[in-house]
C-alpha cells in the first residue's frame, strides 16, 4: 500500500500508517485526511502537531488516556477531554491522529 503526495508514492503499512516517519510532511496529513473525507481544521492540526512533538520527545505515540491528559495540560480542559478529541477524530484520537501525524499506531492500541 502507499499514499500519493505531490506525485510521489510514499510507502504505508496495511493499515495506512506511514512506513518511514521521516517522509512526513503536512501534505501527507492532508492527503490521508482527504482519503477519509476529513477536512483538517486548525483544531486538528493542534492535535497532530502535539503528537509529533510528543513523539520527538519520548519516542512513542501516547495512549489515548495519556494524550487526553497531556492535551488538557497544554491546551486547556475544554480540549483535554475525550468528547472533544473524538469529535475531531471519530476513528479514535490515538489511531487516526497518529496516522495523520505520520507516527506508528499507539503502543497498546489494537
Amino acid at each position, binding site marked *: 500500500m502507499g499514499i500519493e503526495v505531490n506525485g510521489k508514492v510514499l510507502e504505508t503499512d496495511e493499515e495506512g500508517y506511514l512506513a518511514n516517519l521521516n517522509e512526513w510532511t503536512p501534505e501527507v496529513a492532508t492527503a490521508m485526511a482527504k482519503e477519509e473525507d476529513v477536512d483538517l481544521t486548525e483544531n486538528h492540526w493542534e492535535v497532530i502537531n502535539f503528537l509529533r512533538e510528543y513523539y520527538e*520527545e*519520548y*519516542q*512513542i505515540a*501516547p*495512549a489515548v*488516556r*495519556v494524550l487526553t*491528559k*497531556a492535551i488538557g495540560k497544554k491546551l486547556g480542559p475544554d480540549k483535554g477531554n475525550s468528547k472533544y478529541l473524538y469529535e475531531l477524530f471519530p476513528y479514535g484520537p490515538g489511531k487516526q491522529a497518529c496516522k495523520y501525524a505520520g507516527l506508528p499506531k499507539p*503502543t*497498546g492500541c489494537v
Partner: protein
Amino acid sequence: MSDIKKFMYVNRKAPYGTIYAWESLEVVLIGAAFEQDVSLAFVDDGVYQLCKGQDTTGLGIKNFSATYRALGDYDVSKLYVEKESLEARGLTLDDLMPLTYEDADDDYAEKDSIRVVSSQEMAELFEQSDVLFNF
C-alpha cells in the same frame, strides 16, 4: 476498579543487543492502561537501561531511553534500582536519568520515580508482588 494486583516487571539485561528491555517497556506501557499497581525493578545489567546520555547512532537502532521519561504520564511511578548492581558497575544515582512523576495526591507535585534499594529490600518487594514478569 476492584481486584488491583501488584505487578512487578524485573529488568535484568542491558538495553541494546537483545530485545528484552524494549519489549519490557512496551508491555509496561500497555499494561499501564489496565490500572494495576505497577512497579519496575532494575537489577544486574538492567541498571544500564536507565543510564544518562545513551547514543545508539553507531548501532543503527532506535534510542528508546527517552521513553522511560513518559512512564510518569502513564502513572508508572515506582522504579526500583538495586544498589548492589549499581555499585558492581561503578555507577551511582547521578549516572541515571532523572525520572519524575506528578503526584495526584499531593497537588501534582513533581517527585522522583527512581528509588535505590538494597538487594534485601528488593527481595522483599518481589515477595510482596502478586505477579512478577522477568525480562
